């Protein structure tokens, strides 16, 4: 089961996690990650996105995750619009027979979402708004998945 949603509204991580495994007895592990808007001196942030590409790009990475790990379910939800500290931003939930595959696939999907999904954050700090710069360690996080793929070939 695969669910990909881009939405302005909030999501309920507990409900999403429960939906993934409901009625199934083949699933032995569900990993559910939620990214949350951190305070860090900001009063709000606005997420701009490229809707059609974001959906296609996330689907491509879910395809890739399904090739790498024997997944039994994946849910990805990414919010856009204006968020305040404490708000949910993103959810990645993965289900598999064993925990190792679910953990690895969730981390893989999050690392790719950070650097490849077409979303851009603009922060409100005091009276100023500034576009968030891409972080080098997010790129490094993606690189290690590439090295693992190379090693596997």
């Amino acid at each position, binding site marked *: 089961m695969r669910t990909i949603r881009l939405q302005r509204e909030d999501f309920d991580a507990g409900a999403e996690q429960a939906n993934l495994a409901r009625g199934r007895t083949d699933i032995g592990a569900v990993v559910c990650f939620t990214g949350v808007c951190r305070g860090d001196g900001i009063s709000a942030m606005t997420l701009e996105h490229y809707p059609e590409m974001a959906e296609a790009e996330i689907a491509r990475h879910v395809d890739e995750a399904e090739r790498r790990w024997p997944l039994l379910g994946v849910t990805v939800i990414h919010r856009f619009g204006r968020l305040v500290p404490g708000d949910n931003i993103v959810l990645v939930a993965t289900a598999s027979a064993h925990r190792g595959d679910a953990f690895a696939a969730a981390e893989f999907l999050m690392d790719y979402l950070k650097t490849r999904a077409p*979303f851009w954050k603009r922060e409100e700090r005091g009276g100023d708004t500034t576009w968030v710069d891409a972080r080098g360690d997010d790129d490094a996080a993606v690189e290690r998945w590439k090295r693992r793929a190379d090693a596997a070939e």
Partner: protein
Amino acid sequence: MMGFASAQPILRTADEYEEMSVKLLYFAWVRERIGKPDEVVEPPASVRTVADLVAWLTQRGDEYAHAFENPKVIRAAIDRSHVRPDAALAGAREIAFFPPMTGG
């Protein structure tokens, strides 16, 4: 001999003259600097790659020059897939330009 000079243009293929009409999309500070979210442009046939298109757009005005002042940080997508600057534009319907992504 007189036939050759006048005949030469006829030897060129039709698509050398055909202007490509393509939709451009801009996001985040690229959109803000250019001052619009999208537009349709018709670059000349000599514009063959994403890098060529950036160079051609840069000539169009200060707002484009500002948006593309550091081409190394600009990311591009053709028809909703990430591409590198040397990617060919042939057949592209929608080309997007944006800064490095900061989602998640």
